[in-house]
């Protein structure tokens, strides 16, 4: 979905979100509550500059709007694949963004991720996957790699991977697979305002994803392994 349409459906005219290139930033009012909105569009690659731009918004929110909710609008093709970004420590800039979001959570800001278009790999780890909870629109795409690319890397045929992915969400892209594994809390269908309302009211501030993945049957081992480590003699 186009971000302007999304903003319209979520906030009507009660927002001032603007795009600066691929970078989205602004604030909105939702049922009397002030929300900081940030994110990206045009399947942006997340490089050092875009990670820092997003971190800046989070830091400003911490300083100027204590307790305000933060909504991350996610549309990214993943991390920027450039030598210069590696030289400049892109992993550090992305970690910095993640640390800013994490501090916001600890200081009582509710942080919601929404994949409204596309989310990939490194661009997802320090946005939706570090939020209190991540949600997605039904048409969104979430993946690390598509099955043909995975077939090349793993030397396992596309046919076999496609077959396996019917019963194991680990192998194939897709929003529903991420829901089953606990990485996405739910898909917002129908009234988007209802989705946001529920997310603001009920997102957990602790990490429940391994538990959710087990309960939903999509990621059956992670939670039990964590519990075994906690209980080990």
């Amino acid at each position, binding site marked *: 979905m186009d971000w302007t349409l999304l903003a319209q459906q979520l906030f009507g005219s009660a927002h001032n979100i603007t795009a600066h290139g691929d970078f989205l930033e602004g604030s909105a009012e939702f049922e009397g509550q002030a929300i900081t909105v940030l994110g990206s569009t045009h399947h942006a690659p997340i490089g*050092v*500059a875009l990670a*820092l731009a997003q*971190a800046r918004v989070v*830091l400003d929110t911490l300083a100027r709007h204590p307790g305000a909710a933060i909504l991350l609008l996610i549309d990214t093709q993943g*991390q920027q*694949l*450039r*030598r*210069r*970004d*590696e*030289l*400049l*420590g*892109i*992993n*550090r*800039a*992305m*970690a*910095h963004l*993640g*640390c*800013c979001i*994490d*501090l916001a959570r*600890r200081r009582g800001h509710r942080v919601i991720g929404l994949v409204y278009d596309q989310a990939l*790999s*490194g661009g*997802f*780890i320090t946005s939706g*996957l*570090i939020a209190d909870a991540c949600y997605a629109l039904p048409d969104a795409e979430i*993946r*690390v*790699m598509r099955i043909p690319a*995975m077939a090349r890397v*793993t030397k*396992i045929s596309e046919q076999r991977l496609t077959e*396996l992915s019917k019963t194991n*969400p*680990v*192998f194939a892209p897709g929003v529903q*697979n*991420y829901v089953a*594994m606990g*990485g996405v809390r739910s898909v917002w269908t129908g009234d988007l305002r209802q989705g946001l309302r529920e997310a603001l009211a009920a997102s957990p501030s602790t*990490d429940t*994803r*391994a538990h959710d993945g087990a309960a939903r049957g999509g*990621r059956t*081992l*992670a*939670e039990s*392994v*964590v*519990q*075994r*480590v906690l209980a080990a003699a």
Partner: protein
Amino acid sequence: MSLSFAECSARERIALLFDEGSFHEWLPPSERVTSPHLAQLGLPAAFDDGVAIGRARLDGHGVFVAAQEGAFMGGGVGEVHGAKLVGLLRRALRDRPRAVLLLAESGGVRLHEANAGLIGVSEVMRAVLDVRAAGIPVVVLIGGANGCFGGMGIVARCADRVVMSDIARLAMSGPEVIEASHGVEEFDSRDRALVWRTTGGKHRYLSGDCDALVEDDVAAFRTAAIAALNGSRPLTLAALEREHAGLTQRLHDVADDEDAVLLWQRLGVREAAQVPDMDVETLRSHRPARGTQLAG
């Protein structure tokens, strides 16, 4: 006599780095906690899924430790591997060891179980930040031949302290991936000198991306690990503003086509062109004030 950290296996590193005989492993290979996804793909599993976790003593202090095995799937994080790391970190929150040491060697998410690995890495990241927020230092040691990449490169930078050897690498995407995406002109993955100038331990040390630089020697890593035991670095708004200012300034230091040597010069490194030939001790005396500031 010096013993190469890079050439040791994960378990050898643990045995040599911590106080002799002090390692007690949780979910050891005898429990055969393996990846069901690799089995489905018909691939061989490892009985520890490529990571050893447990408690040990370091200079007499009780610590928790995890060591990734680069020889198994490049240290890639799958569902079980990631959950072992998360379990160790949650246990640290409960039992409060003196520190958590992560001997990182990983290409990032294990692509064979990519979706679960991606979520797993993000769970590790949140768990690291929980432990850090509790005032228990998380120390990442990077010295394996596979480096520390992808999601684990992000995790490393969420820790309180990072120690690297001069032959180690810390980055996001591997040079091969960048070359495949944007061409050999963008990043020649076979130019080893370029690769190390861009992602290697010396560059990370000079620019403050790691806190300590050591020789590729197990004893040197042990000394640096002991020194990092008091290295708790709480994340505060002021600390994040300092980090932001440092990273923003660095972003403006380098134009698109410029090389590490120019960045080092602008950071204030003397004799920047000689850096690749310097030994570790000489290099330490060349660290600029700005690199030290960014290291905190």
